[in-house]
C-alpha cells in the first residue's frame, strides 16, 4: 500500500519547478493582460525538459511515463500560471504514440507541435451514442464528421475553445466515421482548416475555435478506448493544473491573514477568515486525493479512469473557484484591484472551469457513471 510519490516522480516535479522558476510567469500573465501577445515563449524550455514526449513510447523517442507524471507537471504549471502548450499537447502526443504515427517521434523531440481537438464520449445516461464537442456559443454540439472518398478521408465540423491550438502544426481530431469515433491527423495548414485564435479573460490561455471544412485527414489506428482516454487525460490535466493554482491561492491568502491586522488582531485569528482558509485547505486536500485516484486508475484500473478523471476535474474546478474568490475576499478591497496578483488567479479560475466540457459537465458525467454502475450492480445481483 503506497500512494506516496516515488523518487522519480519527485525528481520530475522538482525539475519542472526548476524550469519554471527561471521565468516570472505571474508577472507575464499581468503583462499579457495589458499588452496582448506579449507572453514569453516557454515552448523551447518545455522541449528541453522533455514534456512533449512525456507520455510518448520509448520506441518513438519518448520518455514513456504515465498520465500521473504528466499531471505532476501540470500542477507545477498551474502553480505559477505558466503559459506552456501542455494540456493540448499531451493527449495529442499520446494518441500519435498509441497510433504509431510517424509524427510521434518529432513530437517527442519537440520538432512538431500537435494539438488535441477534444471530443467527449457519450454518457451512460444518454441512450444514443453521441460524441460531443464544445460549441462556440457554449452549447454542446456533435463532433466533426468524416467523409470518405475511396481511400481519401476528409473531415468537417467545428470545435470551440481548443486550448493550445494557436501555433500547432498538427491537429489530432476526434471525428465520427459511420457512427464510430476515429482519431484523425490533420495538417494545421491544410486547405479547409481554419484556426481562429482567441483569448478570453485569462491572457495566459491561448485557444482557438477550429473550423474544418472537408480538410484532408489521415486516420490513426487507435482504439475507441484510447480515444475516450484522451478526453479523460485532458480532464485530469486540467484538474492537476487547477490543484496547482489552488495551492498558490491558499499560500498567498494564508500569508496575508497572518500579517494583516484589524481591530488589533491578525485577521487570521478571526474564525470567519480562519475557517474560510481551512475550507480551502480541505478542498485542496480532497482534490489532490482525487488526483491520486486518477493516477491509480490509469495504472491499475482502466475502467475507473472515466469516473476518476471526472471526479478530479469537478473537485478541483470547484476548489479553484472557491480559492480564487477567497484569495480576493481575504485581501479585502485591495485584492480586487488590477495591481494585485489575486485577479490573475481569479481570471484563470473563471476561464478554465468553462473549457473542455466544463466543470459542470464533469459533475454530470460523474453522476451518470455512478448511476450506471449502481444500475449495473442491481442487474448483476438480479441475474445471480
Amino acid at each position: 500500500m503506497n500512494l506516496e510519490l516515488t523518487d522519480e516522480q519527485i525528481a520530475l516535479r522538482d525539475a519542472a519547478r526548476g524550469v519554471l522558476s527561471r521565468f516570472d510567469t505571474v508577472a507575464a500573465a499581468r503583462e499579457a493582460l495589458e499588452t496582448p501577445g506579449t507572453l514569453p515563449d516557454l515552448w523551447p524550455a518545455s522541449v528541453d525538459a522533455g514534456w512533449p514526449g512525456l507520455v510518448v513510447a520509448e520506441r518513438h523517442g519518448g520518455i514513456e511515463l504515465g498520465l500521473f507524471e504528466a499531471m505532476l507537471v501540470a500542477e507545477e504549471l498551474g502553480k505559477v500560471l505558466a503559459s506552456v502548450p501542455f494540456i493540448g499537447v499531451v493527449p495529442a502526443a499520446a494518441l500519435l504514440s498509441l497510433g504509431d504515427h510517424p509524427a510521434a517521434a518529432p513530437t517527442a523531440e519537440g520538432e512538431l507541435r500537435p494539438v488535441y481537438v477534444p471530443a467527449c464520449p457519450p454518457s451512460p445516461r444518454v441512450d444514443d451514442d453521441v460524441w460531443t464537442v464544445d460549441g462556440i456559443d457554449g452549447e454542446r454540439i456533435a463532433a466533426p464528421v468524416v467523409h470518405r472518398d475511396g481511400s481519401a478521408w476528409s473531415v468537417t465540423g467545428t470545435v470551440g475553445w481548443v486550448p493550445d491550438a494557436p501555433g500547432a502544426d498538427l491537429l489530432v481530431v476526434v471525428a465520427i466515421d459511420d457512427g464510430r469515433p476515429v482519431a484523425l491527423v490533420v495538417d494545421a495548414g491544410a486547405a479547409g482548416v481554419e484556426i481562429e485564435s482567441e483569448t478570453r479573460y485569462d491572457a495566459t490561455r491561448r485557444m482557438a475555435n477550429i473550423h474544418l471544412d472537408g480538410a484532408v485527414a489521415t486516420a490513426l489506428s487507435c482504439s475507441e478506448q484510447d480515444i475516450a482516454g484522451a478526453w479523460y487525460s485532458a480532464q485530469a490535466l486540467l484538474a492537476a493544473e487547477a490543484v496547482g493554482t489552488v495551492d498558490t491561492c491558499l499560500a498567498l491568502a494564508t500569508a496575508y491573514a497572518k500579517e494583516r491586522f484589524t481591530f488589533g488582531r491578525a485577521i487570521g485569528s478571526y474564525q470567519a477568515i480562519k475557517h474560510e482558509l481551512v475550507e480551502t485547505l480541505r478542498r485542496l486536500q480532497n482534490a489532490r486525493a482525487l488526483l491520486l485516484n486518477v493516477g491509480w486508475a490509469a495504472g491499475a484500473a482502466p475502467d475507473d479512469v472515466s469516473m476518476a478523471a471526472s471526479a478530479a476535474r469537478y473537485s478541483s474546478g470547484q476548489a479553484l473557484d472557491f480559492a480564487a474568490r477567497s484569495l480576493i475576499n481575504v485581501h479585502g478591497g485591495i485584492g480586487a484591484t488590477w495591481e494585485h496578483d489575486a485577479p490573475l488567479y481569479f481570471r484563470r479560475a473563471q476561464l478554465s472551469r468553462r473549457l473542455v466540457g466544463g466543470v459542470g459537465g464533469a459533475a454530470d458525467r460523474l453522476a451518470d457513471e455512478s448511476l450506471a454502475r449502481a444500475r449495473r450492480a442491481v442487474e448483476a445481483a438480479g441475474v445471480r
Partner: protein
Amino acid sequence: MDLDDSQEQAEYRAEVRAWIAEHRFEAPPGTGDMEDAAYIEARRTWQGQLSDARLVGVTWPAEFGGPGRGPVDQVIVNQELAAAGVPGGIDVIGLGLMGPCIMVNGTAAQKERYLAPMLHGDEIWCQLFSEPAAGSDLAAVQCRARRDDDGTWRLTGQKVWTTNAQFARFGMCLARTDGDQPKHKGLTMFIVPMDADGVTVRGLRQISGEAEFNEVFLDEVAVGGDEMVVGGEGGGWGAALTVLMYERMMIGLGTEGFGYSPERFAGAVAASPRMDRESGLRTRLADVVVELLAVRFRGLESLSQLADGRVPGPEFGLAKITTVNAVIAAGDLIADVNGPDALVEPGEWAYLISFLPGLKSAGGAEPILRNTVGERVMGLPPEPRLDKKITFDELVARQREGLAA
C-alpha cells in the same frame, strides 16, 4: 398590503414625471467617461437644473435649501429618473453622505458656506475615509493631522476607494490628531480642498481594468485652520458614524438601481437549450431568482417602514450580502451556460463578473456585516476586543511586534 402610491405620492410622482418629460432632452447620457471634463461639466450642469427643480437632495431640509420631503419621495424621484433613462445628480457622495454629515456635525458657518453649492452641483465632494490599513476597521486610520504654530492644520497620509476624487472640489477627511488616545478617540474630521498643494489623486483600477475608484495621497497638505474641522477636534469618529449610517441606507435602498434584477439574469440564459436539459442549471437559476425577489420585497418592506417614519436598522446589511452573493451566482451561471464567449472583454457579463468581487468588500465585508447584525440586531455578545483600552500608538507598536514574533 398595497404597493401603489398613496394619493399624495401619486400626485408628487405625476409632478416629477411631468418635469422630467419636459426636460429629458436637455440631460446628458446616464453613463459616460468620468475622466472626460466635458462630460463631467454636462453632468454638473444637469445637477444644477435638477436642483432648481428641487429634484436632488429631496430629503434635505428647507433650512439648507432642500425641499424637505420624505425618503419615499426621494425613491419616487429615483424611479422616475430611471424610467426616463435620465441620470440624477452627479455628486451622489455629497448629496447622500457629506451634506447630511455637515448638517448634523458642521458649524453654522460651514453649513452656510458649503451646502448650497453642493446641492447645486457647483462643488462636488468626495469621502476620504478608508486607508490601505483601515477598511473594515475604519477607526484604525493612520493619516496624521498636526497643527502648525499659525493654527494651520497639515495632513499627511494615504486614502483609498475614493469615488469622484478626480473631479471633486472638496474631500471630507478622517485623520488622526492624537496618537496618545485610544483608537476611536483622537480622530478629527477635516474639509480638504482637493486643489491644495500636496494632494495627489491616482485612479485605482479594478479587476476589469477600469478605474472605479481613486487613491488620494496627502503630503503635508495645508487645509486651513479650525474652520475646516467638522464636529470638533477629537470628534472625528462621531462624525464618521453619521456618514456610515447614511451609507447603509443608500446601499439598502439602492440594489435595484444597480440593475441586479432576476428578470435580467433569467433573460441571459433563457435562449440556451441546455437550461432545459442539464442537471443543476435550473436549480441555480431558481437560487438566483429567489434571492433577488426576496431582496426586492425586503426593499419594498423598508420603503413601507420609511413611509411610516422608521429608519431601517443594521439588518439592512443582510440585503447587501444577499444581493452580492446572488449576483456572483448569476454571473457564474451565465458564463457556465454561455461558455467562454460570455467572458469577452469589454462585455456585459465579463464586466459583471469582474465587478462583483470588489463589491463584496465594499461598504462592509461580509464577516463585519454579520458581526454587526449579530450584535446589534440579535443581541449576541461581541468578541473580546484587544484594541480599545490602549493608545493608538501603542497598538501600532504591538502589531509590529506581533509580526516580528
